[in-house]
């Protein structure tokens, strides 16, 4: 095969890396079968639905999408989603770091159990998460007297939806930061201390820079999860059109009302936004390392 025959067409030349690869792998038919099985499975399970969404949204042309997305309710819905996610990310960036910190640096009774409980929101149904908050803050909820006395509304309002999203996204930041903190060499902090730095300076100048990439990735995952939260915000927020409707709740309502193009294009927009966020931070991280 090393001698190139003069009769090769340009098409064959174009194909030559592939052909060379096929040639190298002759006789490895078991591997071939496994590879094609996996490729086919992934294409069927993951790529086909994603492609279908793009086709579904563009079925009636781009004009129809613009018309559907210009419905007044949709801007508010996406706005609600965006700011709930931003609040959630900020809270977790601060408290998630504190929690990861005490899990790695402190020893206290019940640490292992609490550490295990942090993963609960990953497995607890979002519906149940929303319902828990309803039991606490709803009309007959346990904390209803306190809430009434303070004069704030939590259930069927944005504060409740923020709390629900906080619950659901709890593990991401903490789980990203714990391994980074564990790998961090504390002698650097001690060296800084000998040089006369105070506690805050040590954290800000020595520890924080080492945590930065873990934080960025934790924030991305939290953000993506918050953008897509549906069950919990539906139960605690009620999905009141024009008030507590988020992007996901809009998609749900549009489907129920058979406004398919609106639902599909909003789903495409939300999915793309979330995807770009995760891929973007992945790319940033890979470029940095």
């Amino acid at each position, binding site marked *: 095969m090393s001698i190139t025959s003069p009769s090769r067409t340009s098409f064959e030349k174009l194909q030559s890396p592939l052909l060379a690869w096929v040639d190298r792998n002759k006789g490895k038919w078991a591997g071939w079968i496994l590879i094609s099985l996996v490729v086919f499975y992934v294409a069927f399970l993951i790529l086909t*639905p*994603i492609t279908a*969404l793009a086709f579904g949204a563009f079925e009636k042309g781009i004009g129809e999408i613009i018309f559907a997305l210009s419905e007044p309710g949709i801007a508010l819905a996406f706005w609600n989603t965006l700011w709930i996610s931003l609040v959630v990310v900020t809270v977790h960036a601060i408290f998630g770091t504190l929690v990861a910190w005490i899990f790695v640096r402190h020893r206290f009774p019940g640490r292992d159990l609490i550490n*295990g409980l942090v993963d609960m929101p990953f497995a607890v149904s979002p519906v149940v998460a929303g319902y828990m*908050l309803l039991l606490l803050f709803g009309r007959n909820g346990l904390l209803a007297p306190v809430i009434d006395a303070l004069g704030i509304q939590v259930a069927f309002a944005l504060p409740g939806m923020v709390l629900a999203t906080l619950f659901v996204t709890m593990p991401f930041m903490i789980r990203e930061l714990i391994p980074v903190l564990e790998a961090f060499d504390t002698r650097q902090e001690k060296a800084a201390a000998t040089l006369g730095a105070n506690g805050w300076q040590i954290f800000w100048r020595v520890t924080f820079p080492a945590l930065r990439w873990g934080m960025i990735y934790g924030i991305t995952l939290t953000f993506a999860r918050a953008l897509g939260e549906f069950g919990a915000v539906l139960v605690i927020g009620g999905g009141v059109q024009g008030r507590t409707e988020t992007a*996901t709740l809009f998609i749900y309502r549009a489907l129920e009302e058979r406004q398919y193009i609106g639902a599909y294009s909003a789903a495409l927009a939300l999915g793309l936004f979330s995807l770009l966020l995760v891929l973007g931070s992945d790319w940033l991280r890979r470029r940095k390392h």
Partner: protein
Amino acid sequence: MNLQTTVTQIGNKRSATLPWGQWGVRSVALSYLAFMLIIPLLVILQDGLQEGPAEFWRQITLPAAWHALKLTLWTATVMTIVNTIMGTLTAFVLVRYDFPGKTILNGIIDLPLAIPTLVTGVMLVILFGPQEVLGAWLKEQFDFSVMFAPPGIILALLFLTFPFVVRSVQPVLLELDRAQERAAATLGAGGWTIFRRIILPPLTLPVITGALLSFARAIGEFGSIVIVAGNIPFRSQTAAVYVFGEVESENRLGASAVSIVMVAIAFGLLMFADYLRKRSKSSKRENV
């Protein structure tokens, strides 16, 4: 006195002179967890059990509730079996073979984590909805419906949980020592024997951990299922959708009872996965 001890002493002195700062951090972090995580979990326990265990049992054995729980468990089981086999295979192919497009395939694995589950549901509706091309064809030719039926639930769950087994097995497979396989081959073992006797044993724990995580995640899934399967009691209503219905119709006892069952399953599975992870960590240390 050498530098090392000086550094350690000063470090120790610092943490001794600043206990209030560390105590502050600890109490803030723990109260955050208590308020955000532990109190909500306890509230649901208290609410579901307040009428006594007999009432709790009656609520979860109501025909619709019982059916929803059974449907959730069996669809999650089918998904876990398929996902475990295909996930292990995918990890194996990604680690052991070189082929064009491998990097792209590796990137695609994580896509389900970045896509909102509700959007996943919408995707499947577009593919398999009764008015859509593929859905109508399947219905006409094979009388097989994906939407509003268990196959749709399983498909949605497979999509969501695909990364878990792959990403749990892949790192372990990467670290495996190929010398053992070569030794087995020189001793005359065939491909299948090598796979079964040499490769599979160290993979058992990560495979089980990945499977447990997939199952735990699947039990509570709502967004994609409510779209794909709808809310038809005795047919396609899963436990999460049932709880949603009970909350909407203000049947507090029923919602709390089924919620407790789901939380208990989630808790048990996560604790078991955690235990396995710790065991694999300690056995690794022993080997070193």
